[in-house]
């Protein structure tokens, strides 16, 4: 056991720090994220800069424009970005989810066309999996694609698609064989969001954000060359994509949660309760300490898993433990925060509504990327080997 960074890992971090010092935008970005094209253009600019410096798609192999970073190095990368409050990465779905899937399953042409565009921010991607009647049971999806000459013709509806309103491309799951068992008739298409017949309608989230959307497909023609992997093998591809999503998501989150916790600590020192600072209250102290230790353990769990992946192979179902942990932790953290900060935390003017936003947004954490119940099913069945019930 040796938790020190290796020399290579240290050098990796040093190099990135040095690069960041010179290239990080001096001013914070302007505009609000969700539906402001100007904001997204700035994000694309930042993505481009990262790519030019060789700091996009770091975990991708060299030959595809990455730098072959190990999972631990990738975690260091995400940590550094978060520590210095770098803008979010426009390419996050492309880099973390779509790119690796194209690298694993894509044709030569697809790799040549899509990968560089993901890296330099030309293309923003979204992930079209969920449907109104197919959420946790994604494999039951019914959006269908029928081959017509050189094209697949797509009809159906997707929902909850994050970033669809700003995306250029979509990783879309469609049914290509309605007669096969549900897992065996799904394929994966790479769909241009400007395709005719495709319309996007934003949905407002509980927190007020327009973060996700509905997508309607009406005879949308997708070139057959945009089939990713083999026909009717889409489910296997999806599982890989989802595991990547779960393994990756955890690493960058620690720093964000740490900021929330540090803000909570500083804020609660200034708030008085029963005549003394809120941090003197023994119950608040217990809550703060519990949040602190759970957060540190989140990072330790994540490092342990990354170290295992680095030394062994690809992410497995254990990623579900990380997903379950971070999502439920964040909910406990922001609930404690609201309790410790007290009545004023409900006011929209208090800290610009930051705590309200965090509190509400956290409810999505145990739903997005596979609900907590689904994660527990996966842990029970695929890690512990308990018998399946459905």
């Amino acid at each position: 056991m040796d938790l020190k960074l290796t020399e290579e890992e240290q050098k990796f971090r040093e190099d990135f720090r040095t690069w960041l010092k010179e290239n990080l935008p001096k001013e914070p970005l302007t505009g609000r994220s969700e539906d402001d094209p100007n904001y997204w253009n700035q994000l694309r600019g930042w993505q481009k800069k990262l790519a030019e410096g060789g700091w996009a798609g770091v975990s991708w192999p060299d030959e595809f424009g990455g730098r072959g970073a190990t999972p631990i190095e990738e975690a260091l990368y995400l940590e550094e970005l978060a520590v210095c409050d770098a803008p979010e990465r426009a390419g996050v779905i492309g880099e973390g989810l779509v790119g690796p899937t194209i690298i694993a399953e894509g044709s030569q042409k697809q790799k040549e066309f899509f990968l560089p565009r993901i890296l330099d921010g030309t293309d923003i991607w979204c992930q079209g999996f969920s449907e109104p009647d197919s959420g946790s049971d994604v494999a039951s999806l019914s959006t269908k694609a029928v081959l017509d000459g050189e094209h697949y013709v797509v009809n159906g509806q997707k929902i909850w698609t994050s970033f669809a309103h700003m995306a250029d491309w979509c990783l879309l799951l469609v049914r290509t064989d309605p007669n096969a068992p549900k897992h065996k008739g799904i394929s994966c298409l790479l769909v241009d969001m400007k395709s005719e017949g495709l319309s996007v309608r934003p949905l407002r989230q509980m927190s007020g954000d327009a973060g996700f959307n509905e997508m309607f497909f009406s005879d949308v023609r997708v070139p057959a060359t945009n089939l990713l992997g083999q026909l009717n093998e889409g489910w296997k591809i999806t599982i890989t994509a989802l595991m990547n999503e779960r393994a990756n998501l955890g690493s960058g989150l620690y720093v964000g949660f740490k900021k929330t916790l540090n803000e909570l600590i500083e804020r609660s020192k200034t708030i008085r309760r029963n005549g003394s600072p809120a941090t003197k209250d023994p119950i608040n102290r217990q809550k703060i300490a519990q949040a602190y230790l759970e957060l540190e353990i989140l990072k330790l769990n994540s490092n342990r898993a990354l170290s295992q992946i680095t030394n062994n192979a690809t992410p497995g179902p254990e990623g579900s433990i990380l997903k379950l942990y971070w999502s439920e932790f964040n909910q406990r953290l922001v609930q404690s925060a609201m309790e410790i900060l007290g009545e004023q935390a409900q006011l929209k003017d208090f800290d610009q509504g930051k705590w309200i936003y965090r509190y509400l947004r956290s409810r999505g954490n145990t739903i997005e990327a596979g609900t907590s119940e689904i994660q527990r099913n996966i842990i029970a069945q695929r890690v512990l080997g308990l018998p399946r019930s459905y």
Partner: protein
Amino acid sequence: MHFDLSKPQKLLQESARTFFKRECPLTRVRELMETGNGFDETLWTHMVDQGWTGLMLPEKYEGLELSIVELAALAEEMGRACTPSPFLATTWASVLIAESENTPIQTKYLKAIAEGSCMATVALQDAESGWNPNLVATTLQPTDNGFKLTGEKWYVLDAATADVLLVVAKKRDQLAIALIPRNREGISIESTPSIDETRKFSQVKFNEVTVSSEDLIAVGGQADKALQRSMHVGTIAVCADLIGSMQWMLETTVEYAKTRKQFGVPIGSFQAVQHQCADMLLLLESSRSATYYAAWALSEDDPASERAVSMAKAYCSDSGREIGNRACQVLGGIGFTWEHDLQLYYKRAKGDELLFGDATFHREELAKQILND
């Protein structure tokens, strides 16, 4: 970064697992539970032969000079086997002596401990001190040629079998640690059976016990430091013991859920049962991450180690109890019986929860550090 036991550390752990299966199966654990002092001389001699009493001690004292990470790997197996033995007491005491910087005492005792000719324990808690050494009220009263020790110690591990007691006392306003043979005049020991019968506690009374200045192995800042370090090591050994218990409870529960049938299907196919098991795994693996990290941080003298120890003990204490509760629920009626071995682990986890401070205690320790007050 390599966040896992190394190959040799895993080998040590596997050989310990085989050892305890062979030398102290649960049938034997139950026999020892019923005895007053829970001591099995043959088992102990064999543990000594493995070098485990000198695991962390320097080679010059016949120790193996391994780190606290190896200690954690070993202690995990003792938890998994629910082993009754004076290992925790003796390890805590030996680290306290080793940290005391008192060469004559070290020369006299450390080799003896490593070789198994001496067993030792630490008498820390007064009736009302909890795990905070600063609240100890047992006193060393100066006399013409030394001191008289008076006080009452609680929760002393394996006092009945220890050859020497390391007593934490106040010498004026300083902390001092006195090493005293158990049979010295004025000492009376009474067994205080607890919920976990695999560990044997005593109440030890000191009635004007004569103590010479050579008996004091550390005083003042040195005593504080040595005691703190030894308690950190002991805390991690208990965290690892908890991990072993949790591992056994999870494995036993999952195995049962796969084979026990109700309504014509294995109960493990019911989601209410699956989710209990999934949560148990999350608690277990998170406890493991926290404990391995704390062990490593201590072995590296990392400045973050004090926090790491409190984090690990707070988390493991809560998790051990929680996993026990869920195991008991999933096992149904059989899990509630004396006959089923769950009771051994359930109680061990409850006892371990309290040893070296429970979750509430360690969260407050952590809060002091985080909030800087």
